[in-house]
């Protein structure tokens, strides 16, 4: 059962081969026996999951099955879930039981989906290896000594290890696509504004976007249909019709114009990864796609720009974690300042502190123009590069990350190299574009993802392009031996 995709599970439930309770229980059993090797869940909500599964079964019996009726999912622990701990991977929110549901959670609930639990993540989504979590690092199911990527590392590992059919993720600079690449699963980061951010704990508000981690593009299409759409509680969500993403999955790719940015195949890219990507592109050429080299000349600005804008926004977003109303509070504060300093000092880990410091500095009087304002200008240039490129191509392809998964502890003392592991994903967030990472091969038995970048709101086309690849390759169907 656990090797089935969501599309297959829906068929199984429809055919009465198993109930949602049976399905849910089988995943809960897998989590309880296998997650000790991975640490991919922060909270497993067994009782709640079985209760939701029972409801789903009775709704199905009553002929009221929603699109994802009875399908177990895991939610990244960044989404607020009513009555359930929502930690965001941080000691700061370890005591936080959200009194409300994120819009994404409400939408999944309305579709009949079942929540298995909350997945591990880098603290406040700040990290590329899942090593910054207060709850300890997540291990990569393909190589337990390796990181799963981050920040949605728990979600990616759990999906790869078949502990859940699919999971949500969030992507601020690559936090869905990079772990999807490292774990050999399908990651989709939609266009900024496609999915509501309400109830998704903010890291960098102008970059954050919720998306999916699944085994196939078809499953991503099913999930996105449920998640996407205007939300009046999020002013940055966009009023644009949500298409049925599954309808166009099988469109032919004959004549598809693929652009390969030369900047994504230059210095810094692992040769073996480059080979995997080149081979994947050849598959598209076989399907009739036309490949051309393009240039995104301001690519080199992406990482520095991101590391001004994201920390600036996070320094402000995380200020509400002050020990006053919720979350961690230090013992016996002497006065207000002591309460702030110790609660935050104890509650946040070193990477979060580093980014708060950088952001606070960048926004300071006298530095604002030199850093924040300049970064906004660079962001515009990066965005223009994509606009120009999309005048000539339909999709941009390249690696999702410069290497396959690195080992746990390998880069923890080298934040700059760690930051560079998002070098190919960050620009997409700065431009607000949709992007995907799909399994394309292996380097030393560690998965490598092909990144697809589309025009704004072109998710249907990206899913179509990804799905067609998955009809001619089986990288996505392979699983880590110990967990299949």
């Amino acid at each position, binding site marked *: 059962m656990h090797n089935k995709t969501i599309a297959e599970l829906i068929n199984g439930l429809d055919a009465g081969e198993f109930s949602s309770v049976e399905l849910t229980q089988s995943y809960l059993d897998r989590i309880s026996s296998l997650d000790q090797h991975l640490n991919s869940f922060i909270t497993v909500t067994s009782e709640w999951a079985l209760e939701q599964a029972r409801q789903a079964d009775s709704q199905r019996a009553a002929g009221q099955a929603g699109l994802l009726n009875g399908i177990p999912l895991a939610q990244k622990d960044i989404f607020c879930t009513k009555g359930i701990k929502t930690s965001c991977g941080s000691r700061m929110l370890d005591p936080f039981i959200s009194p*409300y549901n*994120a819009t994404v959670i409400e939408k999944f609930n309305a579709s009949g989906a079942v929540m298995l639990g909350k997945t591990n993540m880098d603290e406040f989504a700040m990290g590329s290896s899942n090593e910054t979590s207060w709850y300890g690092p997540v291990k990569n199911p393909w190589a337990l000594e390796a990181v799963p990527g981050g920040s949605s590392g728990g979600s990616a590992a759990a999906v790869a290890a078949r502990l859940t059919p699919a999971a949500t993720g969030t992507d601020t600079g690559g936090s869905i696509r990079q772990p999807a690449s490292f774990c050999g699963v399908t990651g989709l980061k939609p266009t900024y504004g496609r999915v509501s951010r309400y109830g998704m704990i903010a890291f960098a*508000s102008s970059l954050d976007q919720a998306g999916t981690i699944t085994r196939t593009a078809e499953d991503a299409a099913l999930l996105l249909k449920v998640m996407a759409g205007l939300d009046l509680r999020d002013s940055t969500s966009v009023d644009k019709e949500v298409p049925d993403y599954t309808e166009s999955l099988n469109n032919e790719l004959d004549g598809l114009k693929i652009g390969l940015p030369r900047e994504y195949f230059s210095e810094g890219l692992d040769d073996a990864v480059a080979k995997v990507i080149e081979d994947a592109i050849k598959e598209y050429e076989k399907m009739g796609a036309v490949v051309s080299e393009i240039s995104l000349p301001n690519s080199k600005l992406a990482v520095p720009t991101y590391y001004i804008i994201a920390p600036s926004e996070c320094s402000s977003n995380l*200020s*509400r974690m002050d020990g*006053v109303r919720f979350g961690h509070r230090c013992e016996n504060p002497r006065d207000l300042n002591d309460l702030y300093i110790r609660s935050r000092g104890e509650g946040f880990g070193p990477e979060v502190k580093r980014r708060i410091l950088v952001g606070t500095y960048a*926004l300071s009087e006298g530095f604002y123009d030199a850093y924040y304002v300049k970064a906004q200008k660079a962001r515009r240039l990066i965005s223009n590069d994509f606009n120009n490129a999309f005048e000539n191509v339909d999709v941009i392809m390249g690696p999702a990350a410069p290497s396959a998964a690195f080992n746990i502890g390998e880069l923890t003392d080298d934040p700059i190299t760690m930051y560079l592991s998002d070098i190919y994903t960050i620009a997409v967030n700065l431009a607000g574009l949709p992007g995907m990472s799909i399994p394309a091969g292996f380097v030393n038995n560690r998965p490598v993802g092909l990144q697809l970048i589309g025009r704004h709101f072109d998710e249907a086309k990206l899913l179509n392009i990804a799905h067609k690849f998955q009809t001619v390759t089986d990288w996505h169907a392979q699983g880590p031996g110990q967990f299949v």
Partner: protein
Amino acid sequence: MQWEVVIGLEIHVQLATKSKIFSGASTAYGAEPNTQACAVDMGLPGVLPVFNGEALRKSVMFGLAIDAQINERSVFDRKNYFYPDSPKAYQISQLYYPVVGKGSIDIDLEDGSTKCIGVTRAHMEEDAGKSLHEDFHGQTGIDLNRAGTPLLEIVSEPDMRSAKEAVAYMRKIHSIVRYLGVSDGNMQEGSFRCDANVSLRPKGQEEFGTRTELKNINSFRFVEKAINVEIERQMDILESGGTITQETRLYDADRNETRSMRSKEEANDYRYFPDPDLLPIVISQEEIEQIRSTLPELPDAKCKRFVTQLGLSEKDARALTSDREMADYFEQVQQSIDDAKMAANWLLGEVSARLNKNALEIKDSPVNAEALTGLLRRIKDNTISGKIAKDVFEAMWEEGGDAHSIIESKGLKQITDTSAIEAIIDEVIAANPSQVEEFKSGKDKLIGFFVGQVMKASKGKANPGQVNQILQKKLKS
């Protein structure tokens, strides 16, 4: 040395919207602590602000009323600072692109002249909650009911040259926002608050002196007092050769002094940047024109109309129009009795005197416009004299009821029966033979004495016109 005072004001006006500026929670005043604070107001993780368009409409109304530039695109910024009653640890405000740009208003000075005061800008922002230091045994309570209440901060140019001018400006702004209905202007409830920037410079000098900012002075009286004591403090320092420190000071009304709160060095760096959770606020010319068409008649225009159309004096018209409810009350009475002067005299006389004495506002007057109209009608139809009317007004104020029933029940109806008046006059003449002699020998002024005696004998009820007429006739015969 001759010093010139330079004052600029920042006025925070609470916009009268039903719900908060970025959430659906109610803005009603006086609820139990934290019962009107939703997840957004509490700044819980994951929540997002959604802008209340009514705050924009009301801000634009104000901008149009002061002939200001309305910015078709304005942007919300975050002002970052830690404080327990600031739940997100930032306030959403507008620094770089405010909704209202440059405008101006005319203020009325005591000598009857007017002066134009520039308004630099006005921007929308959210209010903070309240820290409660009492009743918590050394700890602090936080009430977030007020957090997220919409404010319009109106920033003036440093155009005022005395505390009196500052008060006149504040009163004018107060009058305008109340006329527009964009705020209830209630100072006790904090709907209208003021900070003052005060500095001195040698007369004739172009350059401004170092200023201090006086925080949160929340009545017209305190503004004047606070500014004046700050002027004195600064003058003492400057006269003795010292220098002013740029700082924020707090006015202590009990001691009538200002105290340093924090110096410029201690001031926060607010690290303003555009709020990424909110889109720029955009309003079209058509929408601005639509709002313009809903503007009511404003105090200056109303005052002018009262002078030209109703023949009131400039002074009376000004006094009647400073408050919209007063003006509405006046117009209602005036239209009913068709006598603007009488209506004005009563409102600025008896009614205002009683309101001041009881510290009431016109809307809370026990004698409403309809009741006053009933009273004035009885004067006009000679049922009672103006003097008796004052007694009736007192009775109406104290006991309620309409003029007619009070006149009836107290027997205050004017005596207009000629024979009855003649009878009283005859008695008075008979009782004062020597005065009659003096009058007849040419002491005309004594007519006043006789009128007084007759009115006294009639308990004030005799019609004074008739009394005068009959007296003249009888005394001269």
